[in-house]
């Protein structure tokens, strides 16, 4: 069985786009290949003509602080889409500005998978509970997308159309990287997940939280959770119950009630019942909020 005919190792973004748009048949971008190669080999993805490997594109494999193009004083943390999970876990820039992303990426697969699987692949595969994507959502990440017409930026959530379906045009567009706000004073983030068995497994439920603390009050907060709908979920009503409050038990109870009203938890045959996931919402909400609060 031939799952793909040709392989192209791109050396630059224009080179990758050229290979993508001029392939004589279906072409797909591949990062570490830990999802896509498996899907192709096991028949979950239709065969393609060309795989365009972007893991050697220099601009897509860096983690750096970049100046904002409009406001030079406001930097952004840039993470190339071809950066591996292991590189993120080891990055002092990510440790300083995006703790939730370190915690999420450190839980994906085992060391062998983290050494090859890329953050771009984690997002472009568009699963609703991808650990990296849930952390990026709470961290308010923006994605950069290149096409033959140029590059554009969009909020992360705009990439999602359904489970496993992204809005990227597979043969014209390339997810090149992520921009994250730098961590300000008294801001922090945290990520937790519950999985079974502990080890290499998909999450039963995961959650990321980012917050800003002024004295004893949560002045701003973002919470992301998966799998809680066909798309990754920003828990905006839970966020609004928390904003301006102290994280006491009364506030947490109100936030949990709001969270449970805005998520759609399902029973999945191999992972968990909806009822158990509802229970875990309470555990994860308390854990992530407390952890981010203590760090802020």
């Amino acid at each position, binding site marked *: 069985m*031939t799952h793909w005919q040709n392989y192209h190792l791109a050396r630059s973004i224009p080179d990758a786009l050229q290979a993508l748009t001029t392939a004589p048949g279906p072409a797909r971008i591949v990062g570490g*290949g*830990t999802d896509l190669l498996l899907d192709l080999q096991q028949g979950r993805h239709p065969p393609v003509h060309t795989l365009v490997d972007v893991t050697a594109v220099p601009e897509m494999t860096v983690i750096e602080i970049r100046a904002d193009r409009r406001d030079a004083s406001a930097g952004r943390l840039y993470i190339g889409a071809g950066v591996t999970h292991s590189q993120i876990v080891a990055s002092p820039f990510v440790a300083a500005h995006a703790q939730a992303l370190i915690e999420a990426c450190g839980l994906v697969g085992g*060391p*062998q998978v983290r050494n*090859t699987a890329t953050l771009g692949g984690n997002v472009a595969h568009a699963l609703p509970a991808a650990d990296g994507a849930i952390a990026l959502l709470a961290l308010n990440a923006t994605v950069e997308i290149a096409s033959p017409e140029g590059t554009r930026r969009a909020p992360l959530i705009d990439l999602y159309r359904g489970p496993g379906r992204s809005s990227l045009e597979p043969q014209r567009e390339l997810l090149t990287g992520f921009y994250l706000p730098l961590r300000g004073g008294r801001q922090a983030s945290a990520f937790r997940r519950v999985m079974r068995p502990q080890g*290499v497994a998909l999450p039963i439920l995961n959650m990321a939280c980012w917050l800003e603390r002024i004295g004893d009050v949560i002045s701003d907060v973002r919470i992301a959770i998966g799998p809680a709908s066909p798309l990754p979920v920003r828990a905006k009503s839970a966020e609004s119950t928390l904003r301006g409050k102290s994280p006491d038990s009364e506030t947490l109870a109100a936030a949990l009630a709001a969270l449970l009203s805005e998520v759609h938890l399902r029973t999945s045959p191999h992972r968990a019942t909806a009822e158990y996931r509802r229970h875990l919402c309470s555990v994860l909400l308390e854990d992530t909020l407390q952890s981010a609060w203590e760090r802020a």
Partner: protein
Amino acid sequence: MSYHRITLSVNGSVEQLDVPSQMTLLQALRDKLALTGTKNGCNAGECGACTVLLNGEPVNSCMTLAVECDGASVVTVEGLAGNGELDPIQDAIIDEGGVQCGFCTPGVLISSRALLDRNPHPTEAEIREALVGNLCRCTGYVRIVEAVKQVASSR
């Protein structure tokens, strides 16, 4: 099907291979270079039996394309022993009885070596985390973990 000529270092010797686009590193090692120490377990990136060091880091060779490895350095289980002497982790896993059927052993040895290269004195938690991607259906892991601890405490 397109073919690619790649040059890579395998256990210190430079190899030039013509590989089809679909060939995995695991297939290239076993079928082209007759290095059958690296095992094909699940062929789906889950079990870790095919673990090799790629530029010093453990990867699943069943999920790595051979063509991606052009210019890379690869170490397989055959590359651990040198000058007629086993690697200390090989001695330790024999000593502790950490081998039963043996199918996971090459991958376990490679993941353990990678850990010890990076962190010569790992804690038990660090050992277990480093081996989370290597499934063993025989030993229950205890003797494998003891073997890594033995090397960690011996220097």
